[in-house]
């Protein structure tokens, strides 16, 4: 990996290549294991079964790579004005670096990313959290869900969380109906 400092990991080319490398490595090493098993006389279906855990890992790496690549290409196509491309670039970086940070072993495995470079990934990743934090609410507002669609006492647009929780709790049948346990059990217990 050519990255020299933490800023290099904010280059889509750098992290997309890292994902591509990981996907190719996992697919090719699993294919090689499969081929070795078959050539050593293991039946095809048994060989396949012996590779399935690694195959699943390889597919996840492939899908992750395509997702990162597609995100980066989408950002590149966006108009530069209006600040949207900039915030989408931050999100794309965060998504990509979160994947590397959370699956460090996959990227460190063959030394494509070194331990020192993984520290750079971590630094860039944590920096991005603080950057995106400022726009967190507008970023979810843009999903444009109405309060009725969300149907959540915690997530309404006006943020009146505690009032809403209290009001909605009062609608519960457990607060409006007779308590059958009182007549049957509590009353005899309390009045014995």
């Amino acid at each position, binding site marked *: 990996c050519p990255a020299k400092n933490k800023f290099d990991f904010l280059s889509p080319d750098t992290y997309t290549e890292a994902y591509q490398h990981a996907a*190719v490595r996992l*697919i*090719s090493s699993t*294919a090689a294991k499969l081929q070795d098993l078959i050539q050593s006389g293991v039946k095809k279906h048994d060989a396949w079964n012996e590779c*399935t855990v690694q*195959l*699943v890992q*390889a*597919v*996840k790496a492939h*899908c992750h790579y*395509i*997702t*990162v690549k*597609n*995100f980066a290409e*989408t950002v590149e196509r966006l108009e530069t004005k*209006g*600040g*949207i491309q*900039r*915030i*989408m670039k931050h*999100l794309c970086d*965060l*998504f990509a670096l*979160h994947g590397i940070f959370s699956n460090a072993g996959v990227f460190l495995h063959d030394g494509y990313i070194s331990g020192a470079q993984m520290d750079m990934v971590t630094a860039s990743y944590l920096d*991005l*959290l603080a950057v*995106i*934090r*400022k*726009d*967190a*609410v*507008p*970023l*979810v*507002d*843009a*999903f*444009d*869900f*109405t309060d*009725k*669609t*969300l*149907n*959540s*006492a*915690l*997530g*309404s*647009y*006006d*943020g009146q*969380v505690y009032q809403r*929780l209290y009001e*909605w709790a009062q609608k519960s*049948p457990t607060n409006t109906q007779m308590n059958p346990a009182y007549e049957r059990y509590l009353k005899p217990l309390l009045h014995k």
Partner: protein
Amino acid sequence: VNPDLASERQTPSFSVEKLTALLDGGEENTRIRRAVVEAIESDPVFSRENQYFQSQNEKYEAAVRKAVHLQKKMHEMGWTENGPEFKYIYRALSGEVAFLLHTVFMRSISVLGSDKQITKWIPLATQYQLIGSYAQTELGHGTYLQGLETTAVFDIATQEFILNTPKISAMKWWPGDMGRSATHAVVFAQLDIQGKCYGVHPFIVQIRSLWDHSLCPGITAGDIGPKMNFDHIDNGYLMLQNVRVPRENMLSKFCEVQPDGTYVRRGSQQINYFTMTALRVALISHEAVIPLMKACTIAIRYSVVRRQSKLKPGEEEAKILDFQTQQEKLLPHVAAAYAFHFINNYLEDLFNRGYEEIQRENFDMLPELHAFSSGFKAMVTQYCASAVEACLRACGGHGYSLLSGLPSLCTRILASCIYEGENTILFLQTARFLIKCFMAASAGHPVPPSVTYLAAVKPGK
């Protein structure tokens, strides 16, 4: 508006409205979506106000009431199934509406049926003169179609197929709308002609009377009982004992049984997976990305209202989103919601191109479509399920309350990891495609555009 939330909206670095339009694919789409949402939400029949206090029965009845009312509403509003509004209706109703499998029933007929079959069945289904379901999964068999046990034996003498679920494990289990609503179903069964098995094929079977809704002869059907979520859907079971359907009821766009019992195939056996492929592409958006977006919206807004502990000595309690740990819990999932929204656009493009080719009877893209829809369905739903759970946890005790909206999102999205193909099986289906492509690329042979990166490996290596 709560001042802590209002302050977060004062200086965004971008135009929220423009970003919404970008997600919708243009301002006009945003306008149409909002108009659909407004029309649905202003109608009291579609209210979800007491949803969290309803029983399974009440939820099912409400879903049926909404589905029936929706037909009237669509007519009133001039919305059609091919119109631009249609795709927003499901989002506006949050999927809590009955007869979703009716749509799958129609889609399978449209894709797999002959022109004659489409002409016969689609108008009936569109006008709700029948209610369809889609019965593939069996009690003992899931994603692996070749393992299905239901049989359809062709009787040359009567020109009928005789359908049977020979063992308890062959019973159809889980189909939505089957338990209490459906009158018909597309049933997948192993075709048998004069003792020779020709693999799994789809058949249209009537299961309930159109007169009094009683079960038809030879049919045993019912509801499979309580579930983790999806109370609004009557997931059902179906047993078939010597149920006879006419020869014309086998969906026959790509294969046909002629009156003398001759079997004719046009195209690939894999076409039977196409309905499922279409479903998977559709569910990535509706059942995974949108719930993740909702969970992120709830958790982020709550995280700037909730204050807990101090960041600096002497100051008031801080917004929990100001803690790095809370940012790390939530912000990568907001980024993922955008990433998956864009990958969904990519998959829809790929699917639409593939569908056009199939209509021209070119099946070359089927393996790629099948592999991509499987792999991405599995990857996206798996990620979203854990991300929505992370959002719930990030809201502490209040997230655990049904009233937060998060538990229902959480349990519902978990189901998406299992239905329309259990995720591990789907990953392995994609793996077969990737290994094949890798082997081809290694030998210097051409591979589909989506996996050309595998060709970077030197031939012969």
